C-alpha cells in the first residue's frame, strides 16, 4: 500500500511537471509577444545599432526562438535565470529574497485562513440557519464581494492613517532582513489576504460540512449515542476536509495572484510587486520566472491537495493498492 501511494505521488508529480512544462512554453510564447525591444529597453533609444546588436548577442536575443527557449529552460533548471533587464542584476539575486518574503506572507495567510475557514464553516453548518450561520454567511458574502484593493484601502484608513494609527501602513523590510522581521508590518497585508480568501473557503467548508452532517453515517453516529463533539470531529470533519482540500488549493493559488495587488497596496517587497513592476518595464526574464513560480505554486498546491485528499479518503488510498 505504501509503495502504491508513492507511485501515485510520483505519477502526480510527473503530471505536475508536464503541466509546468506546457506552462513554461506558454509563458515563453506570451512574453515573446510583448512589444518593444528588450535590447533597446536596456540601452535606450540613443543606442547605436552596433551596441544593440552586441547586447542582443550577449543575451542570445538574436538566436532562433527555439534555441532561446531551450536556453531559458535550461537556465531555469540549472538555476541560471539570466539577467533582469530592469535591474541589470541576476534574476535569482533580485527575485530570491522576494520569493521568500511572498511565500512567508502566503504561508501566514494560508495558515490563518485555513483553520479560520474550517472553524467558521463547521460552526455555520452545525447550527445551520442559526444566528451564527446567517450572520457569518452574510459577512463573508460582503467581504468576498469587495476586491482586495478596496478592502486594503479601507483597512489602511481604519488602522493606520485616518481613524486609528495603530498598524503600519506599509511593510518595510530592510534588505537582507527575514520576512518576519516586520511582523507588525505584515498585519495589514495578511488581514487583506485573509479577508480575500476566508469567506470563500469557509463557504465551501460549510457546504461540505452540511453535506456530511446530512449523511447517513453521521445520523448513524448520533443514533449510536455519540456525543456531538465526537460526531463533528471524528465522524464529520475527516469526510468534509477531503473535498475542501481542492478548494483550499485553488484559493492558495488565488492568493498567489492576490499578492500582486496586496503587495502593491502595502509596498510589500515580494514577487507580486516585482511582477507588476516587471510587466510595466517589460522585464522579460523576471516576468517569465515569476509567472513560472506562480504557476508552480498552483501546481504544487494542487498536488498537495490531491495527495491530501487521497490520504484522508481511505477509499482512494486503498484503491491504489
Amino acid at each position: 500500500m505504501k509503495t502504491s501511494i508513492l507511485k501515485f505521488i510520483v505519477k502526480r508529480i510527473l503530471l505536475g511537471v508536464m503541466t509546468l512544462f506546457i506552462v513554461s512554453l506558454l509563458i515563453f510564447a506570451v512574453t515573446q509577444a510583448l512589444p518593444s525591444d528588450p535590447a533597446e529597453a536596456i540601452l535606450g533609444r540613443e543606442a547605436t545599432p552596433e551596441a544593440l546588436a552586441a547586447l542582443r548577442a550577449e543575451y542570445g536575443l538574436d538566436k532562433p526562438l527555439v534555441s532561446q527557449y531551450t536556453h531559458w529552460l535550461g537556465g531555469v533548471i540549472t538555476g541560471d535565470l539570466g539577467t533582469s533587464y530592469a535591474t541589470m542584476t541576476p534574476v535569482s539575486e533580485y527575485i530570491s529574497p522576494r520569493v521568500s518574503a511572498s511565500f512567508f506572507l502566503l504561508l501566514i495567510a494560508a495558515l490563518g485562513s485555513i483553520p479560520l475557514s474550517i472553524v467558521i464553516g463547521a460552526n455555520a453548518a452545525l447550527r445551520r440557519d442559526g444566528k451564527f450561520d446567517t450572520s457569518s454567511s452574510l459577512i463573508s458574502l460582503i467581504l468576498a464581494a469587495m476586491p482586495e484593493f478596496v478592502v486594503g484601502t479601507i483597512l489602511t484608513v481604519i488602522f493606520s492613517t485616518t481613524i486609528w494609527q495603530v498598524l503600519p501602513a506599509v511593510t518595510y523590510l530592510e534588505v537582507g532582513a527575514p520576512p518576519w522581521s516586520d511582523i507588525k508590518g505584515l498585519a495589514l497585508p495578511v488581514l487583506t489576504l485573509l479577508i480575500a480568501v476566508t469567506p470563500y473557503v469557509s463557504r465551501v467548508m460549510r457546504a461540505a460540512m452540511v453535506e456530511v452532517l446530512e449523511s447517513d453515517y453521521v445520523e448513524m453516529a448520533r443514533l449510536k449515542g455519540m456525543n456531538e463533539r465526537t460526531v463533528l470531529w471524528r465522524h464529520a470533519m475527516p469526510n468534509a476536509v477531503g473535498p475542501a482540500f481542492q478548494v483550499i488549493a485553488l484559493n492558495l493559488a488565488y492568493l498567489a495572484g492576490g499578492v500582486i495587488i496586496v503587495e502593491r497596496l502595502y509596498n510589500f517587497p515580494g514577487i507580486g510587486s516585482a511582477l507588476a513592476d516587471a510587466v510595466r518595464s517589460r522585464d522579460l526574464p523576471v516576468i517569465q520566472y515569476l509567472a513560472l513560480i506562480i504557476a508552480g505554486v498552483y501546481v504544487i498546491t494542487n498536488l498537495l491537495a490531491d495527495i491530501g485528499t487521497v490520504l484522508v479518503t481511505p477509499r482512494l488510498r486503498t484503491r491504489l493498492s
Partner: protein
Amino acid sequence: MACRECLQVLIGVEKVNSGLRIINLRLNVAATGNDIVDEVNLTIEKGRVLGLVGESGSGKTTVGLAVLSHARRGVEIAHGEIYCAGTEVLGLDADAKRRIRGELVSYVPQDPASSLNPALRIGVQLMEVLEVHDFGGSSEARKARIKEMMAEVLLPTDDQYLERYPHQLSGGQQQRVGLAMAFACRPSVIVLDEPTTGLDVSTQEHVLKTIRQLTRDHGVAALYITHDLAVVADLADDVAVMYAGRVVEQGEVAEIFGNPAHPYTRHLVAAAPDIAGKKQIVGLSGRAPSPGKRPTGCSFAPRCELAADECREAFPPNVRISDAHSAACIKIGKRGETATQTSPTIQSVSQGDVIIEVRNVSAGYSGTTVVHDVSLTLRKGECLALVGESGSGKTTVSRAIGGLHREWTGSILLNGVPLRSAARQRSVEDRLGIQYVFQNPYGSLNPRRTVGDSIARPLLIAGISKSASRSQVLDVLDKVNLPNSYANKFPDQLSGGERQRVAIARALVSNPQVLVCDEVTSALDVLVQAAIVDLLGNLRKDLGLSMLFVTHNLPLVRSIADHVAVMSEGRIVEVGPSESVIGDPQQQYTRNLITATPSIERSLL
C-alpha cells in the same frame, strides 16, 4: 386520549415492560404542522420481531427513528410515548437520549454502505459504541466483546479484519458489521430499517438468519421495517401495516397473511409475487397521499373499492378481529372484486419466429470480461426473463442488445441480421426495433423535458413532423393508461409508477418489435410493480411484443415470463420454460437461489 386504558388493555401492557411499546405517536412536518405519522400504537414483546410494512412514504422509517427518540431535520415529534424496556424515551433530555441510543435501543440502517463512516476503520466504529456507553469497563473487555459480536454475525474476528475500511467489505459484510454494532451493547430494543434491501437473496437469507438468531438469543424486541412482505412472512412474529402515516392493520403473521382484513392489506398481499406458486399479481392504481394532503376520513378511501361515504367522514376506529389481529376499517369482512385471485394465467405463446438471437456474446468493461460466451434466443411474442444476482452480467447482456454497451464480441441478430454494437451506428429501423426501458424511472426521464417531449423525441429524430408526432404521443399515453394531460407534465410531477409508464410509452412510440426491460419494477412499490407487470403483459398480448425481462426478482419471473435464463458470474447456468426452471430447477445454483428466496406461502405452511 380517552381510550388510552382500553388501548393498553388491548395490547397487554403487563407483558411489555421488557419490550417496546409505542403509544399514540404523532410526528409532524415541523414547518407546517402536518402529520407525517399519527395514532401509531405498537407493542413488541421481548424476543419477538414485528414487521412494519408499507409503501415508501408511509412513515415506517419515521416511526422507527422515533423509537430512538430521533426525528430527522424538518420533522418534529408532536406527542406520544415510547417505552423501551420500560423507559419512556421521548421525554428524555438530550444527554439521556444520547445515552440510551445504542445501549438501550439500537438501530440498523437501510444502507450499510452509506451508514458506515467511510473514513473510519470498522474496528474503530465498533469500539466507539462500546466506549461511549462505557460497556465492559475495560478496553480488553470491549475488544473481547467486539470479537464475540463479530463471531455472532459470522464475520472474521481477527484484528486485520477490524482494520478494514467499510468500502473494503461486501454489502452483506457491511450489514453484518451494522448488526454487530447494533447488538454490541446488548440493547433491549432494536430497530432494523430495511436492512436487507439491496442485498442479493442469498446474502439476504444469511442476514435474516442472523437477525432471527440474535433477537431470539438475546431476547430483544425487534422492529423490522420493510416493504417486502415475503421477508416479513419469513422473519417476523407480528406484522403492522402502515398506510399514509397510520397503522391500518396489525396482528400475527399468519393472521395477516392468511386472513388480511383491511382492503389495503389485501391489495398488498395480492400484489406480491410469490416464488412458491404461479400467481397472477394484481396492482392498484393511484398513490398514497403525502402529509398535508391527507383526507379527513380514511386515507385509503380514494383508492378503496369498498369506500363508502362514512369512510370519508372520519378516520375509522381500530376494529378488533381476533386476540392477535385488529384493523382500522369499518368494512372489514366485505370483499371487493379486485382482490380476487382468479385471473387467467399467461398463455404461453412461444414457438414463434426467432426475433433476437444472441450468439456467443462476451462483454466487458475496459478489458475486464464480465459476460462469457452467452447465447440466447427470443422468439416473437415471447417474454424471456433474464435473472441473476447483482454482478451476474444480466444487465450487460441487455445493454449490449439495446446498443447501450459497446464493448462486446460475438453477434446479436435482429430478425437474422447482425446488429452493430452502438445504437448510434445502427440503422433507424434497427434502433426503433429494439427499445430499452430502464430500471430507475427517476433517472431515465430528463427532468427538464415534458413527458410529451420525451416521448416524441424518437419520432422527431426519425423525421416525423411535430403535429404527427403529437397524436402518436397521445396514442401511446393511452396505451400505458395515462391521461392525455400527462403529456404536458414534467417527470417530477409524476409518481414512480407513472414515470415508468411514461418510459414504457417512450419505448412503445417507435413501434418496436422487442422491448428490453431492465429491472423495470425494482425501484417501485409492490402495488405499482404489479400494475406495471400487468401493463406489460397486456401490451405483449395486444401488440405482439417480444420482451426481454431482466430482473433479480425470481418470484416475479413466474408472474410474467414464458422462459427464463438464469445467469451467474457472466454465464448462463440454466434456460427453460419459467414453470419448469422455477418449479423444478436442474442446477444447484438455481436451486439455491430459489430456496434462499423468502416466500409468504412457504412461511405460512
